């Protein structure tokens, strides 16, 4: 089967560093942190972490009530980011319902906030008589994808990968494959996450949440650093409009970057702990998919969330493939871990790095943990010729993903 090239023509962002692509890039370039104290977490019994990378200044009222009534925060973020991506791409309104455009947007869970509110009411008297019609549409697993399709009148394929921290990189990867196979001309791809203390607790009970920097939020998380002590949970949404190169050129759309490789694999060594060999295998499969050797990669955007085991394993996996030949950084220090949104937000940032020919360093990386050594950690932003980027995401459940982006402008 002949595959068609796939490009990125639009980006939409709701993030702890701001609510569009330019604010995200400005925040990253300025070395800003999106992590803040969350007073709500002090009220949760047994929770040690007090920090999160939450979004602000989102105005849900921009969305007509008829669409918003079935949306929780994650779908609101997905709607607003999708709208940005379609606008940036100049995607024609009269093509939204052509069947050529699809939606691939996932989330870790359905809306936990909605579940909590429903059950808090339900357990008062076990009555369902106060349950409104919007409840299910906020709790279902494909809430973001369905709400985006309904709101914009998108009639092509709609699917919603769910793989925790690898959700949106799978969403992008599966979208890439479907366009490459000619099943769709364009797909809105990404993931969304809404903050809830349950996510923080999930990592805290496994001793994988940052708890030692509660009084100085902007100094954590600390990927690859000696003093790293875990994840800071975040929220937001990243959307990339993937499109066949032919479609983009026919429309005269500005092409931001090309997606040239994808792989996703299952690491069955543990449901929670990463395996170096499985990570290496995932990156190798993506290189194979792209038809590239490791020598063709100019920069690795790591998943590195600042956990003890995850950072060591990923650094070792990158070392085995790339040694210290190319720069490596993680954006979790700026953005926290936006979970289902992280892959797409960090891919968007990688698109920005390709455009600006400037690499973003790992924030809060002061003393490199020697167990994360042997790779070229980037500790200062720097202008750097970069044509091809390899991007990792590794998720709870043993789900690994790697995506390879290539600059469209710098041949």
């Amino acid at each position: 089967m002949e595959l068609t090239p796939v490009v990125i023509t639009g980006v939409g962002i709701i993030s702890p560093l701001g609510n569009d692509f330019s604010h995200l890039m400005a925040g990253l370039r300025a070395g800003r942190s999106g992590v803040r104290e969350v007073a709500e977490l002090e009220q949760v019994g047994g929770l040690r972490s007090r920090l999160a990378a939450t979004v602000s200044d989102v105005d849900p009222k921009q969305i007509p009530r008829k669409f918003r009534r079935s949306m929780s925060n994650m779908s609101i973020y997905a709607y607003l980011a999708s709208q940005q991506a379609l606008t940036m791409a100049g995607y024609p309104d009269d093509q939204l319902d052509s069947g050529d455009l699809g939606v691939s947007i996932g989330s870790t869970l359905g809306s936990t906030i909605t579940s909590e509110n429903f059950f808090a009411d339900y357990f008062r008297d076990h009555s369902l008589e106060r349950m409104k019609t919007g409840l299910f549409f906020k709790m279902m697993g494909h809430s973001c994808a369905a709400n985006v399709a309904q709101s914009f009148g998108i009639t092509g394929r709609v699917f919603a990968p769910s793989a925790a921290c690898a959700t949106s990189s799978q969403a992008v990867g599966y979208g890439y494959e479907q366009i490459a196979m000619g099943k769709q001309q364009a797909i809105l791809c990404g993931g969304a996450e809404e903050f809830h203390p349950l996510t923080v607790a999930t990592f805290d009970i496994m001793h994988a949440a940052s708890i030692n920097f509660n009084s100085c939020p902007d100094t954590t998380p600390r990927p690859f650093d000696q003093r790293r002590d875990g994840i800071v949970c975040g929220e937001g949404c990243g959307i990339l409009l993937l499109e066949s190169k032919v479609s983009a050129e026919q429309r005269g759309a500005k092409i931001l970057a090309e997606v040239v490789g994808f792989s996703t694999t299952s690491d069955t060594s543990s449901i929670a702990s990463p395996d170096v060999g499985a990570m290496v295998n995932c990156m190798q499969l993506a290189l194979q998919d792209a038809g590239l050797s490791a020598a063709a990669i100019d920069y690795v955007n790591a998943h590195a969330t600042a956990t003890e085991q995850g950072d060591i394993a990923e650094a070792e996996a990158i070392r085995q493939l790339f040694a210290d030949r190319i720069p490596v950084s993680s954006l979790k220090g700026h953005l926290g871990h936006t979970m289902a949104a992280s892959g797409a937000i960090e891919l968007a940032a990688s698109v920005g790095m390709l455009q600006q020919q400037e690499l973003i360093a790992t924030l809060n990386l002061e003393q490199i943990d020697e167990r994360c050594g042997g790779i070229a950690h980037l500790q200062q932003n720097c202008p750097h010729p970069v044509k091809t980027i390899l991007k990792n995401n590794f998720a709870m459940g043993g789900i690994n993903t790697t995506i390879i982006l290539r600059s469209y402008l710098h041949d």
Partner: protein
Amino acid sequence: MTEAEVIELIDSSLAEEFELDRADMGPTANLYEDLGLDSLDTVDMVIVLEGAFEFKIREEEAVRAIRTLDDIHRFVLAKIEQES
């Protein structure tokens, strides 16, 4: 509760739930054509009214015949009268 108070509670509850402009909420306003509600909203409207007036109306045949705000006003007033 006076008739005017009942009507005010109905209108304010629906305005809040469905983000309606009170200026559009004349008694003859059609819920679907003028106020833009649909079948899902109708289900939620019943829940809102049950919450506001602490009665049960979802099984009542007359609910299905409601088309205008005035229909709602008259239905609720009759229901309150019937239960008093």
